């Protein structure tokens, strides 16, 4: 079976991501309010109001991919922030404090909207930035979802959506329209559906698409969600992947193993990682992280549906539910082993993994490891150690070890 050539869609990807960066600068120049948003938050409201949604986390990935997080962090640390904080936050804070901007600039906000469903680092970063730029700040507070708390948490979120709409109207002078919101959510649905279908193609064996591809191609589902461009992009990507299947071209042509990777990728070493796995004929099939945007809104109950969807961000669930989520993905993608990434930058994704590893090995009956490193800051990445850990997993897979 031939190896899949680089996807042609990458050209279009670069173009539309370029349009997003340029769009932020144009919005700034033309007086259209730039609203800082978090990646998993109800951007549909912001889009429906004709505001420009801007994602500082995406800037964090850019800096990390350019292997510059530690450099940006120097300025942040010199000012009084600490190296144990989130790598994205340190990149963003550092960008404001430094003279050089090799990753382009983090566009200053006119309004800051932060949802803490993902973590409580984002609010800290956004609070400081809102103060720096004297931008009105709104926190969408998202308490933990458990069986006992879910009703309260979702009701609370729903009520805050109404507060958010009033806040945005007051801060920007723009009007909110429910019809526009439904149109936006419909577009978001269509892109999310395609995204989900693309991710699910990795369940084919062999698969035309891997987790590493998903990390590279997820930009539009975050930044262009709720607009035609995202739908268009994923339609094209899906068609191209279908062609790959028809031609029998795969990223890992002779798939020997399929793996689950828990959470985010190690941005500065994404190529190294993907080559490492390819050398071992292992396809990393899925991750909860990329599935975070594989969602579906109920257009008949727009605000309720936004509340239910975003308050239930996968990170924001109880220990046991999160184990079940991982297990469900492992089963659906029929993986042979798993890697749990204990990410220095991200407590919500990392604390509890030692116990979860044991549980998952028991329940799935497959081997798995915990990898201790960082998603962005290479000071925490020890290549020899990471390679050793991964080799250990492959040894267990070779031995057909079933726990």
């Amino acid at each position: 079976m031939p190896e899949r050539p680089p996807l042609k869609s990458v050209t279009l990807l670069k173009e539309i991501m370029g349009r997003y960066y340029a769009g932020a600068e144009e919005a700034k120049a033309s007086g259209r309010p730039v609203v800082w948003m978090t990646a998993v938050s109800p951007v549909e409201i912001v889009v429906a109001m004709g505001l420009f949604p801007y994602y500082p986390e995406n800037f964090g990935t850019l800096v990390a991919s350019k292997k510059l997080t530690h450099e940006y962090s120097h300025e942040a640390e010199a000012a009084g922030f600490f190296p144990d904080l989130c790598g994205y936050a340190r990149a963003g804070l550092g960008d404001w404090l430094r003279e050089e901007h090799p990753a382009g600039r983090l566009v200053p906000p006119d309004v800051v909207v932060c949802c803490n469903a993902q973590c409580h680092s984002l609010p800290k970063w956004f609070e400081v930035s809102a103060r720096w730029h004297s931008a009105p700040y709104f926190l969408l507070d998202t308490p933990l979802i458990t069986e006992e708390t879910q009703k309260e948490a979702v009701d609370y979120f729903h009520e805050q959506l109404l507060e958010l709409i009033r806040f945005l109207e007051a801060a920007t002078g723009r009007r909110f329209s429910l019809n526009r919101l439904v149109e936006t959510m419909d577009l978001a649905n269509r892109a999310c559906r395609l995204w989900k279908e693309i991710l699910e193609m990795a369940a084919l064996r062999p698969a035309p698409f891997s987790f590493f591809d998903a990390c590279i191609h997820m930009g539009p589902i975050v930044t262009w969600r709720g607009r035609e461009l995202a739908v268009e992009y994923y339609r094209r990507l899906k068609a191209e992947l279908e062609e790959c299947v028809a031609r029998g071209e795969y990223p890992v042509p002779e798939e020997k193993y399929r793996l689950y990777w828990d959470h985010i990728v190690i941005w500065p070493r994404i190529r190294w990682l993907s080559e490492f796995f390819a050398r071992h004929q292992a396809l990393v099939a899925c991750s909860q992280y990329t599935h975070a945007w594989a969602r579906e809104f109920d257009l008949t109950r727009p605000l309720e549906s936004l509340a239910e969807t975003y308050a239930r961000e996968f990170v924001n669930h109880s220990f046991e539910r999160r184990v079940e989520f991982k297990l469900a993905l492992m089963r659906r993608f029929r993986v042979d082993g798993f890697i749990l990434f204990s990410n220095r930058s991200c407590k919500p994704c990392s604390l509890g993994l030692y116990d979860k590893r044991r549980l998952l090995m028991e329940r799935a009956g497959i081997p798995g490891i915990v990898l201790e490193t960082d998603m962005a800051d290479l000071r925490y990445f020890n290549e020899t150690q990471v390679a050793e850990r991964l080799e250990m997993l492959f040894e267990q897979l070779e031995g057909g070890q079933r726990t």
Partner: protein
Amino acid sequence: MEARVILDLFYDIVKHPWQAARNWKGRTGGLVIGWLPADVPEELIMAAGALPVGILGGEGLLSRADAHLPVWACSFARSSLELGLRGELDFLDGLVMPLTCDTLRLLAGIWEHCLPELRVHPYLIAHQVDRPSAGKLVRAEILRLKRALEKLIGREITGETLKAAIELNRSCKQWLKRFYNWHRLHPEALSGEDLFVLLRAATLLPKEDLLSALSALAGELGLEPGSSPETSGAVGAGKHPVYLSGSVAAPPGIFRLLDEAGLAVAGDDLHHGGRYLVPVGEGSDPIEQLAARQLALPPTGYLNSPQADRPGRLIKEVRRAGARGVIFLHLRFCEPENYDYYQLNQALEREGIPSLRVETDFQGSSLGQIRTRLEAFAEMLGGGIGA
């Protein structure tokens, strides 16, 4: 009994933190409910006829927690879990864990998984308090905790018992505030370490016992029961008044170092200090009163929107307390404080208020080094800088 003898009893309680609760449980057969700082309405637990016990980490080596939490989780979380894993908390009938930061949000689940018999009740915190939605969440959470406690005791918590609990706890906190002032005025008679031992014991003892022990101590010290618990600007001679800022200060020995360096605690915003002492206000609806307290708590690391203006509030509090400098007692890896330090430090610099950041953990690393830095800071304050 002399004051020092009574104080020694308090020290003893803090040294063997769970003994009082074990004794009480043996004597009364009642339920003991643990809670982690901060913001948990103790009064609900009291009204259930149960004993609230503050869990504030522990000293000593971590042998078991390492298997469950990475080294870069803060030592408050790690050492609290260690206590549970070691079986030291086996007398608890439940544990209320406020989900203040990411670490506690995750710790609750790890705790449930490792120690299911300890029955964790995750207590949701509103991370914004300036919009109507926050009030609703806080009230709903208080009621959910009330229901959980009622289920545990098999009867209803009445408004009357809750009112009585609020009154009792208010008296305790008023006394503690008077002692706080006493320390400010007479640091030689009641040291900073003494003060924080009282504050710690306050969350370990049954409140009735606490109240009588505090009145006895007041009698010996010559402290008037009628004296105002409100802070005054005056500070005793011979010591440099400082303001402490952070979440949870550890290890307890840190307060002795402050005393030895010639520093008096004029005020603080610690979760087991000044923040704990915020009383429940007056009112006719006790649930409403508990909610109002929670919404009125001062900003802290996990509650610091630009609207809350934590830096501005810190400056105001430092001035009000008559402190000449600020000492940040930060737990290593405490994320909220590590984000806020920059802004707080900038604000203090603008105002010309000297500050020192001390990073510690429950395992008490490098206290010798901290001692030297505190002494140098005291010397600098003595030079009249920033006075």
